[in-house]
């Protein structure tokens, strides 16, 4: 074949074109058709998943509200030196007055107040109050004095420094906040000791997620092994028991743990009854880390068992028998022959459980008390309660980065090809 090509040039198809070209054309058509077939899904994923997430993450740096609401003030503040510790000149107050007249008409000043209140406590009410009075101010009079009369914060250079610091359309403020730092007078500085929380929470989230993953593996491996080795009929019955939690509401399962684990709960009552624990020394197993670990291990267990099971089913039992017939003990046969073949299942299960648990928030919120909550509880708080979506987005970006870095590490060390879901 190779010889023939060399001698007589390219092989021609029936229509006289070179075969290679003709084949490529046919393949291209096929590819296009395949693409057209997956296009609905692709477009769906892009529109409903990638675009909103990108938009949400973009909020972690977006700060257009300040220059948009106070365009003249921002321009006038450019020449003001914040480090001098003096108030800006009258022209800046005049610019602020103009900006606020426009902003109040558009009801944008309170929005700006909420934004800047994240950086300096008190700006929210400052702008609300100023907004109510700004129309009654005299344009020709001493504006600096009039503003100071409305609220003393306008006579505080720190207020102006905050506006100037957050006057560009993009800000690093949210990301700094997310790593317990802030933009101060002299640049980036750490937050005071009594406000440092996020790095601590990131560490705790990672640590607890590892613990939960290991717990799932230790409990799930024997179960999956049993399921994979039992006869089909029995294992199907047991499989239903594994799947049953999947069909029960998450909140029901979490509440059930409350009933079991609390100090007047079933487990403590039983322990007191059989005399293992004194009545005044009941164990605290909920509203702390223990509660989070127990409840989440239970909830995520199926995600460990299912991939393990599907990998173990593909391991032929004859390998173990062969090992034993060659003189291996039960343990050696398991450890040297069976276990290495189940590693891809461990990889898949561990990744699933770890990534799910790192972003979990409802169970830690309900049973975690104060020592068992995750970073996602803070993200949820900032999304739904404090409305500080910029900070929530910044925390989300960091969490996403951490997961990607861990994933990359996992690929380097174990190899992602070694992961099998079945």
């Amino acid at each position, binding site marked *: 074949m190779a010889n023939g090509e060399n001698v007589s040039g390219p092989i021609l198809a029936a229509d006289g074109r070179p075969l290679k070209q003709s084949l490529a054309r046919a393949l291209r058509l096929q590819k296009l058709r395949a693409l057209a077939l997956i296009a609905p899904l692709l477009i769906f994923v892009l529109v409903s998943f990638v675009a909103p997430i990108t938009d949400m993450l973009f909020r972690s740096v977006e700060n257009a509200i300040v220059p948009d609401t106070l365009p003249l003030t921002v321009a006038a503040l450019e020449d003001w030196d914040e480090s001098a510790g003096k108030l800006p000149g009258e022209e800046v107050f005049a610019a602020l007055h103009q900006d606020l007249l426009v902003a109040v008409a558009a009801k944008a000043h309170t929005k700006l107040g909420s934004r800047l209140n994240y950086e300096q406590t008190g700006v929210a009410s400052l702008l609300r109050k100023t907004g109510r009075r700004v129309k009654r101010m005299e344009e020709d009079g001493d504006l600096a004095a009039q503003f100071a009369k409305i609220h003393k914060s306008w006579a505080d250079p720190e207020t102006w420094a905050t506006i100037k610091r957050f006057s560009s359309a993009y800000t690093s403020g949210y990301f700094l906040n997310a790593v317990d730092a802030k933009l101060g007078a002299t640049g980036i500085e750490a937050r005071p000791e009594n406000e440092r929380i996020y790095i601590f929470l990131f560490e705790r989230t990672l640590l607890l997620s590892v613990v939960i993953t290991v717990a799932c593996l230790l409990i799930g491996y024997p179960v999956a092994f049993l399921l994979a080795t039992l006869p089909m009929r029995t294992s199907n019955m047991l499989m239903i028991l594994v799947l049953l939690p999947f069909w029960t509401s998450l909140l029901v399962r979490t509440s059930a743990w409350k009933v079991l684990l609390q100090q007047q709960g079933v487990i403590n009552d039983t322990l007191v009854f059989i005399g293992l624990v004194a009545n005044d020394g009941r164990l605290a197993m909920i*509203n702390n880390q223990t509660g989070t670990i127990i409840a989440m291990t239970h909830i995520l267990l199926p995600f460990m068992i299912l991939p393990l099971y599907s990998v173990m089913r593909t391991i032929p039992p004859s390998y173990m028998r062969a090992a034993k017939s060659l003189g291996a003990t039960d343990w050696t046969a398991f450890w040297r022959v069976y276990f290495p073949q189940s590693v891809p299942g461990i990889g898949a299960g561990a990744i699933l459980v770890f990534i799910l648990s790192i972003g979990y928030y409802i169970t830690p919120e309900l049973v975690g008390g104060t020592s068992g909550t995750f970073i996602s509880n803070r993200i949820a708080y900032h999304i739904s309660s404090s409305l*500080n979506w910029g900070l929530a987005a910044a925390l989300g970006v960091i969490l996403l980065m951490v997961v990607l870095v861990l994933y990359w590490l996992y690929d380097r060390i174990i190899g992602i090809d070694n992961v099998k879901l079945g």
Partner: protein
Amino acid sequence: MRLRTFLAAGAVASVALAGAAQAEDMTIVSWGGAYSASQMNAYHKPYMEMNPDVNIINDESAAEAVAKLRAMAEAGNTTWDVVDVVASDAIRLCDEGLAMEIDVDSMLAAAPDGTPASKDFGDFLVTPCFIPQIVYSTTFGYRTDMVGDTPPKDVCAVFDLENYPGKRSLEKRPINNMEWALMCDGVAMEDIYDQLATEEGQARAFAKLDTIKEHVVWWSAGADTPQLLADGEIVIGSTYNGRLFKLIEEDKQPVAMLWDGQVFDLDGWIVPANLSDERKKRALHYLNFATDTQRLADQAKYISYGPARASSAPLVGKHATLGIDMAPHMPNEPSNMSNTLLYNYEFWADYRDDIDAKFQTWLAK
């Protein structure tokens, strides 16, 4: 061909259905549970009887209302018509331009004696976007069988580990807890917020909370404290007064109410900004009915929250199923009000982010 006809017919039918549905559905968002049921009985049912062309859909996602309203506004598709929120959220929605400003006197009914609505609601009109509906309070309930012969008389029993040993529950947020801590640390009622505005005052409140930190179960859902009390997990705990009413009067648990130190808060309605004129008109028509003097008094038949109109108070009657007088169970009943705080909206709008960061750090340490 047949498939195409079928699809076309389906499309026509669904458009027609959607059109019909838009003509009469009104989505009202509230908190669910007994609270939504009380609104259903006092407001929605009579309103739908009087206006058969309106169909009220009850959505129970008030807990995420602020975030969802913002998301809907950004997407340009607000599907809610009337939303039940607490006053502090109404202030934020108003600040963000997500709720419409209400001209109380021209849009809402006057009291039966002709007092304009703005006077009838009085100080409860905390922001121009908000129509107050009920006054509720966050207060304490305690196990009567776990306090011996000396039941607690004031809120500082929470900090008294000597006489009332055992666990107590507090909400997992700084609001109210900081106030109680200062109150029981000897700060006069009128100085509390001046103190809390300073670093020293905040540190003082945290120091007071430190004394009981190890004995506190922190709750985040309103149902937590009633459950903890019913199971005997805690001696004393804070929650909403309506939850305690249910626990004591309906479930007959050995629990008693401590009105001392209760913190008043308001719950009420907002109308999302940027509704179409037609929907806005419909929402206001409903609110005009649902917030009149009689309707607010009616709601108290089903739940122990006080009507926000002064003119409704004399009309509060008996509980619809239990048949007991509801007036003594209202947080704004004078005999329950000897020592109370009104949630300071202005203060917490400013300090919430700052103190919350410190509170969470304090909790985690």
